[in-house]
């Protein structure tokens, strides 16, 4: 049923062009895909983006380095902590700041919780796109618990602004670690619950196995990172390759898929959530005492130079390219948006498949338009 090799349009076919989005329930925001259809079969798809462009990179140029952090929250608004982590990591790199270990561990906890939160959103919306409604609510209930932890730590739930150059603005509150541990200890049971609903489900498998296949070579060629790359079988994770913070001191596996289809990416992300739970548990066990802020000047003026620093965001490699001219604002602060680059492979992945597969592939790429358009 899935042997849908790309076909030439039949001689008497009438291709029609449909504009999917920007107002469409399943395009995860304001993505617009111009789809050329032959019946239900996709002849060509062309993503049109930019509806959410806010000129974030231009805004960065007139912000102080710490003032730029709230703007990063708004790029991938489902993963604010990893965005913050990337930016402060880049600035610390260019300044040569060493972060106190407690701050680094808390950052890792926040980032891994954020990865779980982002993946729960992905699972909910992906399942909703494919037609299963209930996982959306189950996953969001778990996400709420993470957001509650964030709210207790930094006072915000979504746009955290939880990190500063040199460390963290606050220490953890009393009892936070206990609540966090309680959450991560019960979370694997929730994942198992969702998997009972989906993993073996024959309809879910029909809809995802063999859909949106991308081989490892072509995934590298298209610059995919994160779960889409790992789903194709490339064992690559920034946390392992270029460990930042203290990722080299915790144990975790990089789950990889084999066939590079939507089902494999689904399995990879489910396993990533479990690995994140593992990391959080280890971090909580290792969490040292001490300050959470390194000795950095009040006005951050990095030396002249340029640095590219990337973190493993939930969606893929999230890179920050900081060019400093020695001033208090970045001369240029470029973001390597993982979703933007992952989305580029969409036409490749859906060509020759059906309209319903387009939705599945958009879901499996886990795009956030805030990051694509910036």
């Amino acid at each position, binding site marked *: 049923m899935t042997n849908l090799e790309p076909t030439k349009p039949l001689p008497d076919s009438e291709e029609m062009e449909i504009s999917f989005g920007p107002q469409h329930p399943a395009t995860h925001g304001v993505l617009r895909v111009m789809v050329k259809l032959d019946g239900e079969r996709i002849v060509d798809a062309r993503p049109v983006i930019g509806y959410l462009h806010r000129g974030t990179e231009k805004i960065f140029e007139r912000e102080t380095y710490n*003032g730029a952090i709230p703007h990063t929250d708004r790029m991938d608004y489902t993963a604010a902590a990893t965005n913050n982590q990337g930016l402060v990591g880049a600035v610390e790199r260019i300044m040569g700041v060493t972060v106190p270990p407690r701050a680094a561990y808390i950052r890792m906890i926040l980032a891994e919780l954020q990865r779980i939160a982002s993946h729960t959103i992905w699972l909910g919306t992906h399942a909703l796109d494919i037609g299963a409604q209930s996982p959306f609510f189950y996953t969001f209930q778990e996400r709420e618990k993470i957001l509650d932890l964030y709210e207790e730590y930094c006072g*915000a739930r979504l746009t955290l602004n939880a990190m500063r150059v040199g460390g963290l603005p606050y220490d953890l509150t009393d009892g936070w670690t206990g609540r966090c541990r309680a959450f991560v200890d019960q979370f694997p049971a929730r994942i198992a619950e969702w998997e009972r609903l989906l993993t073996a489900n024959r309809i879910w498998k029909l809809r995802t196995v063999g859909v949106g296949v991308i081989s490892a070579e072509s995934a590298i060629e298209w610059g995919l990172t994160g779960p889409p790359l790992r789903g194709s079988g490339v064992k690559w994770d920034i946390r392992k390759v270029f460990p930042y913070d203290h990722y080299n001191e915790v144990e975790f596996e990089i789950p990889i898929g084999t066939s590079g289809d939507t089902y494999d990416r689904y399995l990879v992300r489910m396993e990533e959530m479990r690995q994140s739970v593992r990391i959080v548990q280890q971090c909580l066990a290792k969490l040292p005492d001490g300050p959470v802020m390194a000795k950095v000047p009040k006005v951050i003026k990095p030396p002249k130079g340029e640095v590219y620093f990337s973190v493993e965001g939930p969606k893929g490699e999230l890179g920050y390219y900081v060019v400093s001219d020695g001033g208090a604002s970045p001369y240029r602060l470029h973001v390597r948006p993982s979703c933007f680059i992952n989305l580029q492979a969409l036409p490749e992945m859906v060509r020759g498949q059906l309209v319903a597969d387009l939705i599945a592939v958009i879901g499996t790429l886990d795009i956030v338009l805030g990051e694509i358009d910036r």
Partner: protein
Amino acid sequence: MSFWGFLASVVPFELAQGLGVTGRFFFKRKATIQYPEVKPVPKDRFRGMFGFSEERCIVCHSCAKACPIAIIHIQDHFEEVEVEGKKRKKKVLDRYDIDVKRCMFCGLCEEACPTKPVAIWLTTKSYETAAYERNERLYFTKERLQSWDGVRPYPGVVPPSQGQLPEDPTGGSGEAKP
């Protein structure tokens, strides 16, 4: 294919399993919070509506500089005041406006504030700032910032005009200053 494998491929056991999951959730406790009647309780660090104290403010403009989107507008002038018999110049606020409708509640202004206790803070738990006229109702002058005219404080929170302290975001309803 083994018999059981064949059976599992014909009879949709796993679909029944899925039905079991949703069926169990049918009887679980519901997560809904009946909002206007029951209000979610913000945590102590929750960034809500601004509190501002003109007495504590030393007019250093740190908050305005720290604000990433420049929505804090400060104007001041010098005034001669007599402190312990000596005449000294003191900065006095003319204008301290926050354009709350554009605020993204990042809390950088509170962090930048050098006074102890801080003169501007967001830990007031009050989040019901919605208004029909955003240009008028969500633009806060220093008087409105202190009187909280038009802001509904979170139950138990004492508005800044009645002496709420940033260390005590709940307002400590009992011991509030007059």
